[in-house]
């Protein structure tokens, strides 16, 4: 469970979140980050508590049991599409980043294709295997991520003066945009909608767990926002497209086989964003499967509904990657983050309805 939350948190470092934050840096980011942290933890707590009432059932199952068809089909469809978009944002951000910083010659389509081939296999796996994969890959990458953070934080080029300047803006009123971007860090818990069917026992979510998630969230948010500012200066950072990657490029490892930290950074975050993509699209696929089942789509006694969706996903992403550029992506991503609170609202609404009907 933690993995799902943490993976989403860490993925955001390379995603659009830091960029939105630094652009908004003079409009009360710090205050909205604190607000997002508090609200994020509280929301996480409530989501887990609500799902604990239905332990061992996935969200579509719950809704199908306790709500009418006209209600659950649009809700699940909305969820699935949101999750697909969340995945595609991560994918595109990474693909753009990779072509910009590592291999300029490779075309976008080829890189996307490499992702899409592997992810389509991942999407079709059993949900349990997805969890195991996430666990293993995350644990393999975690030491390197920690090393990178420590390395970057202790680098002599990190100017804490800039951080202090940024801190001074604490008393401005928060902006909605930065709040929603920051709260995106805590969206990972929503993946429970599918994976809840594997948590047969009630998840313990008491004070200890809240503290862990709160602390990790706070640390990640802090690093996400302040470290690029410390390296690049408070004034200039707005002009960077990928504040974090540029930051990591400022660090050198004198004795490493790979000298520039940026390459380790990019390769490690390839793994992380892959996981994020895998989780998002897997959940999205499962949600779609729960409402659509094409009986005619059959070949050798195998129903091809899920294959159809996988091909659809791949097709859309391969098509879109050539049509969209970094600035548009940024624009759409911020719109997507802005409508996230609605997402939470619908999730809570539907769960409350189900809870009342189930009389738990």
């Amino acid at each position, binding site marked *: 469970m933690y993995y799902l939350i943490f993976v989403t948190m860490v993925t955001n470092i390379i995603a659009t979140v830091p960029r939105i934050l630094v652009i908004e840096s003079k409009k009360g980011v710090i205050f909205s980050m604190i607000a997002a942290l508090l609200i994020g933890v509280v929301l996480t707590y409530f989501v887990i508590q609500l799902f604990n009432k239905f332990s061992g059932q996935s969200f579509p199952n719950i809704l199908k049991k306790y709500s009418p068809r006209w209600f659950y089909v649009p809700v699940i469809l909305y969820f699935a599409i949101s999750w697909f978009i969340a995945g595609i944002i991560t994918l595109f951000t990474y693909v753009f980043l990779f072509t910009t910083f*590592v291999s300029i010659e490779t075309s976008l389509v*080829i890189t996307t294709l490499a992702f899409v081939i592997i992810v389509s296999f991942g999407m079709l796996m059993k949900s349990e295997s997805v969890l195991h994969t996430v666990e*293993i890959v995350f644990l393999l990458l975690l030491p390197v991520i920690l090393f990178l953070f420590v390395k970057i934080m202790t680098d002599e080029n990190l100017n804490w003066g800039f951080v202090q300047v940024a801190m001074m803006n604490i008393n401005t009123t928060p902006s909605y945009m930065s709040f929603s971007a920051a709260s995106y860090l805590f969206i990972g818990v929503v993946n429970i909608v599918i994976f809840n069917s594997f948590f047969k026992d009630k998840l313990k979510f008491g004070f200890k767990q809240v503290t862990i998630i709160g602390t990790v969230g706070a640390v990640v948010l802090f690093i996400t926002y302040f470290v690029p500012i410390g390296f690049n200066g408070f004034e200039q950072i707005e002009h960077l497209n990928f504040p974090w990657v540029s930051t990591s490029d400022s660090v050198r490892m004198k004795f490493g086989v790979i000298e520039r930290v940026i390459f380790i950074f990019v390769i490690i975050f390839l793994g992380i964003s892959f996981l994020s993509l895998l989780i998002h699209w897997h959940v999205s696929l499962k949600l779609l499967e729960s409402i659509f089942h094409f009986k005619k789509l059959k070949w050798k006694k195998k129903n091809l509904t899920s294959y159809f969706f996988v091909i659809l996903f791949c097709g859309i992403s391969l098509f879109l990657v050539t049509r969209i550029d970094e600035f548009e992506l940024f624009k759409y991503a911020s719109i997507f983050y802005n409508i996230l609170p609605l997402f939470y609202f619908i999730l809570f609404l539907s769960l409350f309805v189900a809870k009342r009907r189930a009389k738990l």
Partner: protein
Amino acid sequence: MFSRNGVFRLCANEKQTAPELMENIFEKLNRSEDVLTIPLQLENNNAFILYLKTVVDGVKLQNIIIKPFFELKSMEFFSSYIQSLPDIVKMKTGEELLIQLMKGHVLIAIQDKFFLVDIKMITAGSPQQAVLEPTIYGPQLALSESIETNMNMIRNRYAEPSLIIESVQLTDKTHQSMVLLYDKKKVKQSVLDALRLKIEGMDNTLVESSGDLQLLLNSTKFSLFPTMILTERPDRITYNLSNGKIIIMMDGSPQAIVAPVIFFDFMVSMEDNYHSYWISLFTLTLRYVGLLTCILLPAMYVAVTSYTPDILRVELALSVAGSRLGVPYPSFIEVLFMLLFMEFLIESSIRLPKAISATATTVGGLILGTAATEAALTSNIMIIIVSAVAITSFVIPISEMSFAIRICRYLLLAFTTLFGTVGLMLGFLGIIMYLTNKDSFGEPFLKINWKSMKREKEV
């Protein structure tokens, strides 16, 4: 007693002529030359024995059946003597009786009673030296080719009353006996049921050894990674038994099958249990590093030379590029070429007799390596990589796994060649996903087990 048309009849004890049952069997065995029906007669007492000369231990037969017949006074004494023999088995009927006779049982007819005694001739009964999984410390003897000796070894090593031995008869042409061993207290019932179902569902005409039995028990037809371990070490078997796994042994093959297994089991050598904590931790880490090197290194070479040379620090990038100077084709062909030669070398040195295989390795390894670099067909660094890969692929203790890893390497190489550095990383993640998606009798193949860090504790 049991005739061809299936009617049960008691047969009278007629002098000199063998009972009808024996005649029938004799007919059914097509009057093969090694089928013997011997009448025993002493004054008024007479008995018949029927056996196959080729599979029955003659000396033992003489000692425990024929001699006492002439020493004991009456038929009653003899028949109660036979009944108290330790090797007596339950009387079978029909096809089963035939199979038992084929396997070295002796049918004895005393007046109107029939007995079946197991006097098998064991030719390959002595335990062999451990060849496939040698260790420095620990037991040096491996399983033998006879199932009795093997079970004796296991029982001696694992003297728990909860150890259950369940024998299964294969329905193929060999009619080999097969044995399931498990600790009743530790075994997971769902796994046991799944395995039994699998065995019952098997319909193959010829199962020769536990090697192909393992393949038949495998659920998917085209699978790369093994989902069962073949082992020849009795200490590995007892270790696995005590961790709740099921052992399948087959007569006539010196390897036992362990199921279900997880990925980490393949990386454990029994040596780990005989060393102190830090030493075994070190060797285990070494093995995992070897595994990663073996899979990643060739693909990494392609990624670094052809796609993103700027990843490495400048000095290293230059020396790699300098070493490739004059190599007339892209790096993936170079890698493929050298890897293939290495595989040829490995394959030929396995097949050749020991005396010649040393020559093959010398010629292949030393001469070809030097010559290839001097002819500028490969770079020096490539030679280092190929040798590193060749060495590390032998670090994996179970050879089944090492073969699978060798194939994985090529898949990763292909993916990297197509997609570059992204392909390298994603291909590796893909292999991990493939492994996590696999299962061995319902147990996930690759997952991190938090409860106990001891690898084979799971299941």
